[in-house]
């Protein structure tokens, strides 16, 4: 095999300027419209940081407290803006600390460009100080990675990186740049990448499959739309609504699809999956047609595949051909961008309504509300419940805040009870389920949407995984609202132990530090509530405060999240109680 580097085309330089590789990196980022970078310096990336000093007025660099925070913050930024998130780290430990965020971005299709410094090229492979094989480590969790060993490769590599990260099914890209490549000078010129011979991110829609899908929709008596993250990625929210409204189809959302459809919409029927709503899960096994848009039939959505929607025909609209027929076999697959498919499909479907079918969902909603919702949302005695906190926040923000959740019970409660009315407002780690995600991701989300209220909802366990990012919030004055739902337990694991391990609470009870003192130590105003009577006022202060604020709510220690589909069971076996 040829081990040469990217073919940098030999052509006469026109407006070329002689600059260093480091400066070229920053110039490339500016050419790609980057305004915010999350990062942490170190020996192998020092030349780039040195150049950054010169570009501080153009590039807002946020110094995180741990590189994992940089990759999650870049994800948060990307998820709310649709732009590509950017993070920097040094070689070795800096680069390995980025990996969790990169893996998270890969599984949740988030566009990310990570730039890591690397030891000088003559030291590659010598186990030099702070050298790790970041190419080898990142390969399984990136959409593409590339090691730059010559300054001349920088423009081409970065142009490709941005094109690859944010086209087709988005994902993370890593560019590793040796220290000598950062130092050496070359004639800089930049050209955006728009084409790679071996990469075709947008499959061309086949009209035959659109026709077949339209026919299935027109014939269906009980159709159901499954709205995934792909709808948000392709900015197809209004196209989705147009189709759903014309054909009168109920819409259910995946965890990552939340906020694609306003929750008040009369055809919105709730969230799918393990801790989703009762109606859409039950109806999955009663509908006659599933129309899955930009979602990948994750096992958290499908439960046991052998009993999943066997009675239904399946239309799968998906940009990634590898996802088609991977978990659920489709009758018709439209392999292309969701927006294009929905536009084409809307033209071919007939005006219709399915009022009786929709009413069946509402009947199940009523059962869910009676068995779970009422007690969760409006308790009158006992300790504070997570759900009532979310309900109040949802009401006070009119469903228009950006909700960034960590992983655990609070994540499921926030996803179930926050009534999203605005779009691209749900940021969570779905595929990897990364604890420690929310605090840094919320920082990124806030910097991406300064106009929005951004609320991080975090458990006491996950908070402590990236708690040091309070330092970043403090130093960079990032106006995120941090809500800790403290149950002194690794709640979600404890729930499983209660239900499936005979209440053997093996290492899930946590003795927590004084979060108030920690917050104060970081100069972040805070408050702690454990009484229902004080909750509403405390939330008002929390929301109205100008700038970052930490609110700790002590919630019931052994609360459970229902409904629930036990792992590997059929979606029909969704349980409303233990």
């Amino acid at each position, binding site marked *: *095999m040829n081990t040469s580097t990217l073919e940098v085309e030999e052509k006469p330089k026109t407006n070329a300027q002689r600059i260093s590789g480091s400066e070229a990196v920053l110039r490339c980022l500016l050419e790609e419209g980057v305004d915010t970078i999350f990062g942490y310096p170190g020996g192998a990336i020092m030349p780039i940081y040195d150049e950054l000093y010169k570009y501080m007025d153009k590039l807002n660099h946020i110094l995180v407290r741990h590189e994992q925070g940089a990759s999650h913050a870049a994800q948060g930024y990307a998820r709310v803006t649709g732009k590509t998130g950017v993070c920097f780290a040094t070689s070795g430990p800096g680069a390995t600390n980025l990996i969790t965020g990169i893996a998270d971005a890969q599984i949740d299709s988030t566009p990310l460009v990570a730039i890591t410094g690397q030891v000088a090229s003559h030291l590659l492979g010598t186990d030099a100080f702070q050298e790790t094989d970041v190419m*080898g480590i990142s390969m399984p969790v990136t959409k*593409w990675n590339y090691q730059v060993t010559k300054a001349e490769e920088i423009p081409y590599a970065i142009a490709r990186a941005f094109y690859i990260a944010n086209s087709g099914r988005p994902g993370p890209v890593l560019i590793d740049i040796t220290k000598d490549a950062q130092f050496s000078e070359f004639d800089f010129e930049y050209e955006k990448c728009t084409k*790679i011979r071996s990469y075709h991110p*947008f*499959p*061309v*829609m086949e009209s035959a499959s659109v026709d077949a899908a339209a026919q299935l929709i027109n014939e269906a008596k009980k159709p159901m739309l499954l709205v995934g993250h792909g709808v948000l990625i392709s900015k197809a929210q209004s196209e989705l609504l147009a189709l759903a409204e014309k054909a009168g189809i109920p819409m259910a959302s995946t965890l990552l699809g939340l906020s694609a459809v306003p929750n008040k919409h009369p055809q919105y029927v709730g969230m799918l999956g393990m801790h989703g709503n009762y109606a859409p899960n039950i109806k999955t096994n009663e509908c006659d047609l599933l129309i899955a848009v930009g979602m990948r039939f994750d096992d958290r959505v499908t439960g046991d595949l052998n009993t999943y929607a066997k009675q239904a025909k399946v239309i799968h609209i998906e940009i990634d051909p590898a996802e088609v027929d991977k978990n659920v076999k489709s009758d018709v697959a439209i392999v292309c961008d969701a*927006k*294009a498919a929905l536009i084409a499909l809307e033209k071919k479907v007939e005006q219709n309504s399915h009022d009786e079918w929709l009413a069946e969902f509402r009947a199940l909603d009523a059962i869910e509300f009676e068995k779970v919702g009422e007690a969760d949302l409006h308790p009158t005695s006992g300790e504070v419940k997570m759900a009532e906190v979310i309900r109040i926040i949802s009401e006070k923000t009119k469903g228009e805040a950006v909700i960034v959740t960590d992983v655990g019970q609070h994540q499921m409660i926030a996803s179930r009870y926050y009534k999203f009315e605005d779009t691209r407002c749900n940021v969570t780690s779905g595929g990897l389920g990364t604890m420690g995600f929310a605090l840094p991701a919320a920082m990124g989300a806030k910097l991406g949407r300064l106009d929005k209220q951004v609320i991080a909802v975090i458990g006491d366990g996950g908070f402590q995984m990236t708690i040091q990012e309070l330092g970043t919030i403090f130093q960079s004055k990032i106006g995120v609202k941090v809500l800790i739902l403290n149950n002194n337990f690794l709640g979600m694991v404890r729930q499983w132990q209660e239900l499936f391990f005979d209440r053997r609470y093996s290492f899930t009870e946590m003795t927590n530090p004084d979060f108030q003192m920690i917050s104060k130590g970081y100069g972040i105003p805070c408050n702690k509530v454990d009484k229902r009577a004080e909750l509403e006022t405390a939330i008002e202060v929390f929301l109205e405060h100008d700038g970052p604020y930490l609110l700790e709510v002590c919630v019931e220690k052994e609360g459970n999240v229902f409904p629930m589909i036990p792992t590997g069971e059929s979606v029909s076996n969704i349980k409303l109680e233990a």
Partner: protein
Amino acid sequence: MEKQYTMSVLTEDKAGLLNNLTIILTRRKINIDSLNVSTTEVKGISRFTIVVTTSKDKVDNCVKQFRKLIDVLGAFVYEEDEVYYQELALYKVPTSVFLNGNKIETLVRNNGARILVIEADHIIIEKTGHMEDTQDLYRKLEPLGLLEFVRSGRVAISKSKRKTEAYIKELEETRSNELSIKDY
């Protein structure tokens, strides 16, 4: 049901791709039976021929994952009867076995093998064929004092009439670099 499949992957001639491809297999605990990398008739394009024993579902899934790699131009999977394939085997035997009245010359000839090199102390025999054939000769030479044996990865060519270049053109037409909504 597990079966032997030949996967054929057309790629840009870039470093690191072998690792990319094998990661996809190892993640799924699929063992590689044989592997070959070679250039193709199209400049700058390489072909990986990977033989695995697994189920149809898994092999299809892997091929789809291969296609997702940025530098992969195409990936295909073939069953036994859809390809022409060969392997090359080399056998080293002591020169003395030819002198001891063995019918080794006949053996070589009857098995469609040929003598590649004759040295004072050893002789190299070469044979191409399917694995069963090269294995068969191995079994026959072993009792005579086989010193060393090596077999190459499978090389395979599909029975389809399509040219590699034509395939790449087709690919360009059915998939696109840009999203154009206006056509709909």
